[in-house]
C-alpha cells in the first residue's frame, strides 16, 4: 500500500509534538541567574524535584516585570515560581500579577522573620547592598560611603548599579544623612536633588552595571577601582581566589521573595515548592553556598559559624546597617526612576 506523503508528514509531526509535550517539565522556576541561581539550583530546585518526583525547567531574568505582565495579561503563563524584588512584589500583588498565598499550605508564619510573611510572597533570602574593592590593587581602601565618593584619595572608576534604588540612598549616606533620616530626606524634592548633586561629583567616573555578575567582572578586570555590589557575589568571588574587601559600614539590607505568577498552570506544585523552600533544613543550606541571609528562624540556628560570619545578619556586619524601604519604593519608583534616567542621560 502506498502511503500519502502528506499524512506521513503529519503523523511525524504529531509524534514529534507528543514527544515534546512529554518532555515539557512539570514546573518552571525562575531566578536572577549567575552564582545565585547556581546556589538556588543546588539548595532548592534539584532537591525539590527529587523529593516531589517531578521535573523542572529554569529561566532567569533581571527583574523586569514586563514579561510577567505580558504573560498574566494574555493568560499564557509559562513561568510558575519567580524570585521577586520586594518592591516589585508589593506592586505586582496590588495589580494581581502574583497569586495571593494560602499560608496554611506553606508553613507556620510564626516560624519566619516577620518581613518574610507577605500576602503574595514568601521570603527567599536576605541580601546586603555594600561596596567592595580589590585588596590586590588597593591596600588601604575606602571604609564608608563618604570614602566611596573620595576620588582624590582613591582615584579610579566607580561601579554603580544602573537603578535609582539603593544608588540614591548611597548618595545621601555619603552626603552625611543620618541612617534614621534617610527615607525622610529621600521623600522630599530637596532630598532627591541633594542625592543627584552628590552623584554629580563622581558622575564622570561612574561605570553602570545592571546585572550582579557585571559588577564583579569589572572589579576583577580592574576596570573599576570600587564597586557597589550585593554581598553574596563578592564572597563567592573570594571563595574562588579573589581578595575583594567588603565594606559593611552603611550596608543596606533587604529581602527577595518567591512568588507564584497569576494563572500559573502548576499552582499546586508551585505551592509545594514554596513550602519545601521554607523548611528550616533546606534553607539552612543556602548560606553554605552563597552568603545570603535566610528567613526561617529555626534555620538560622542551623547555619555553620563560618558561613554565618559572612551573612548580612551577622552582628558585626549589622553594626551600621539600614533596612531597605520597599514600601517607599513601591510608591515612588516611577517618579524617581524617571528622574534618575533623565539625570543619567545628561
Amino acid at each position, binding site marked *: 500500500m502506498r502511503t500519502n506523503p502528506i499524512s506521513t508528514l503529519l503523523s511525524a509531526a504529531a509524534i514529534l509534538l507528543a514527544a515534546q509535550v512529554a518532555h515539557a517539565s512539570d514546573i518552571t522556576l525562575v531566578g536572577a541567574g549567575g552564582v545565585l541561581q547556581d546556589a538556588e539550583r543546588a539548595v532548592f530546585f534539584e532537591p525539590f524535584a527529587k523529593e516531589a518526583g517531578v521535573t523542572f525547567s529554569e529561566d532567569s531574568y533581571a527583574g523586569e516585570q514586563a514579561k510577567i505582565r505580558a504573560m498574566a495579561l494574555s493568560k499564557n503563563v509559562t513561568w510558575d515560581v519567580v524570585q521577586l524584588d520586594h518592591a516589585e512584589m508589593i506592586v505586582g500583588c496590588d495589580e494581581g500579577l502574583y497569586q495571593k498565598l494560602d499560608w496554611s499550605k506553606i508553613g507556620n508564619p510564626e516560624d519566619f522573620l516577620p518581613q518574610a510573611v507577605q500576602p503574595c510572597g514568601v521570603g527567599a533570602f536576605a541580601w546586603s547592598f555594600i561596596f567592595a574593592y580589590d585588596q590586590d590593587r588597593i591596600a588601604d581602601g575606602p571604609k564608608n560611603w563618604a570614602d566611596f565618593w573620595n576620588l582624590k584619595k582613591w582615584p579610579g572608576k566607580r561601579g554603580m548599579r544602573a537603578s535609582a534604588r539603593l544608588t540614591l540612598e548611597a548618595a545621601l549616606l555619603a552626603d552625611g544623612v543620618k541612617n534614621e533620616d534617610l527615607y525622610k530626606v529621600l521623600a522630599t524634592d530637596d532630598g532627591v536633588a541633594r542625592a543627584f548633586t552628590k552623584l554629580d561629583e563622581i558622575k564622570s567616573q561612574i561605570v553602570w552595571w*545592571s546585572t550582579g555578575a557585571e559588577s564583579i567582572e569589572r572589579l576583577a578586570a580592574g576596570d573599576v577601582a570600587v564597586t557597589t555590589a550585593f554581598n553574596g557575589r563578592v564572597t563567592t568571588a573570594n571563595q574562588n581566589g579573589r581578595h575583594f574587601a567588603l565594606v559593611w559600614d552603611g550596608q543596606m539590607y533587604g529581602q527577595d521573595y518567591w512568588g507564584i505568577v497569576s494563572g500559573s498552570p502548576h499552582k499546586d506544585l508551585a505551592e509545594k515548592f514554596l513550602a519545601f523552600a521554607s523548611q528550616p533544613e533546606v534553607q539552612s543550606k543556602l548560606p553554605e553556598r552563597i552568603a545570603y541571609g535566610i528567613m526561617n528562624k529555626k534555620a538560622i540556628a542551623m547555619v555553620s559559624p563560618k558561613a554565618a560570619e559572612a551573612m548580612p545578619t551577622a552582628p558585626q556586619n549589622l553594626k551600621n546597617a539600614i533596612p531597605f524601604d520597599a514600601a517607599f519604593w513601591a510608591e515612588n519608583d516611577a517618579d524617581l526612576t524617571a528622574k534618575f534616567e533623565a539625570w543619567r542621560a545628561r
Partner: protein
Amino acid sequence: MNECLVPEQERPIRRAKLTTAPILLSAPLVVFLTVFFFAPLAVMLSYSVRNNEVPSVLPHLSKAIATWDGRGLPPDSVFSALALDLRSNNDSMALGEAARRLDFEAPGYRALLFKTARRLQAEQTSTASRDELTNIDARWSNPRYWLALNRATARLTPAFFLAAFDLKIDDVGHIVRVEDDRRVYLDTFLRTFQIAGTVTLLCLVLGYPIAFAITVLPRRLAAALTFSVILPFWTSLLVRTSAWIVVLSKDGVVNSFLTRLGVISEPLQLIFNRTGLYIVMVHILLPFMVLPIRSVMNGISPNYMKASASLGAHPCLGFFKVYLPLTLPGVGAGCLMTFIIAIGYYITPALVGGAGDNMISFFIAFHTNSVINWGMAAALGVVLLSAVLLIFGTFGRLLGFSRIVALK
C-alpha cells in the same frame, strides 16, 4: 527595427507573464511581512496615542468627568462616580494598567488609586463620596489629581508625543516644557544623531581605502581582505561587544601590549567612555560601509583613470575629478546604511559606553521592558522612525532611490 523580430501576437502575453510572475513570487513574503511585521508595527505605534486604560476600568467616572469644566474641584457626581467604579472593580490587572497610566500624569497616583480602592472595598459607609475619598487620602482634595484623571480619560492623548520632546500639558491646559530634572529626550536624540554621525564618518575614513584596496589587490589578497571585513557579520553582536570589553579593559590585551612596549606607563581608559563606544561601533558597522563602496568601485573601468592621465592630469587630480565622483553613489549608500543602523544601537552603548552615553533606543527598550510604559516607547519609536524616513527620503532624492536600494 528590432521590434520586428518579435512576432506581433506574442508580445502582450510576455508582458502579462512579466507582471503576474513577480507578484505571485513575492506574495508569500508580502503576506509574511504584513502579518508579522507591518500589522504588529502598526498596533505598537498606535499605543503612542491610545488612551483607553482609564475609561475601560472607570467607565462611570469617565462619563461624569466629561461634564466638568476643569476649574477648582469637580462636582459631587464625579466623586461618587469614582467611588462607585473603584468599589465595584474586580479586575486588579486592568486597574493596574489604569494606575500606571495615571502615575505617568501625576507621580504617586498608582499608590493613591490602589490605596483608595482597597479602603473603599473594605468598608461600606453612608457618608458622601467627597468626604469619604478625602478622608482616605487628602490628595483627593487637590485639583491636580482630578485634572490628571481628566487628561487620561480623553479618547486620544498627545501626552506621549509631547513627552518625547520634553513637553507636557500643564494643569491649566498649556503646552510647557517639563521640569529641568525630567528633561532627557531632546538631548538624547541629539546625542544619538551625533554618535551615529561620528561613527559614520569614522567608518567612511577607514572603509573607503579598504574598499579601494579590495578592488585593486590581486584576487587572492582581495578575497582575504574582504573576508576579514565581513567576518564580524558572522558573530553575534553581544559576543563581539563582550570580546571588546576583554580587549580594551585596564588589564586587557591592548593596554598590556602598550605597557610592555613602554609606550605608556599608566593603562589607558579605552572602554566605558565615548572612545570605547566609537571603537566598538565602528568595528561592528564597518562592513555596511565597505561593501556598498566596493561594489560601486568594482564597476568603474580603469580606463577612466588612464584617460585622465593621458590628458595630462596628475593622479591626484584624476582621483578627485574622475574617480571620487564615480564612487559617490556607493559612498552615499554606505553612509546612509551605516547611519541608519547606528541610530538604532542601544546594547552596545549601554555595555561599553560611559555614564552619559545612552542612545534613544535604550529608552525605547527601557519603557517597554522596565517601566512598562508602552505609550512612551511607541511615541519615541515613531519619532525615531520618522527621523530615519526623513533622512532616507532626503538622501534618496539626492542620490536616487534605485541607487540606494539596488546599490547600482
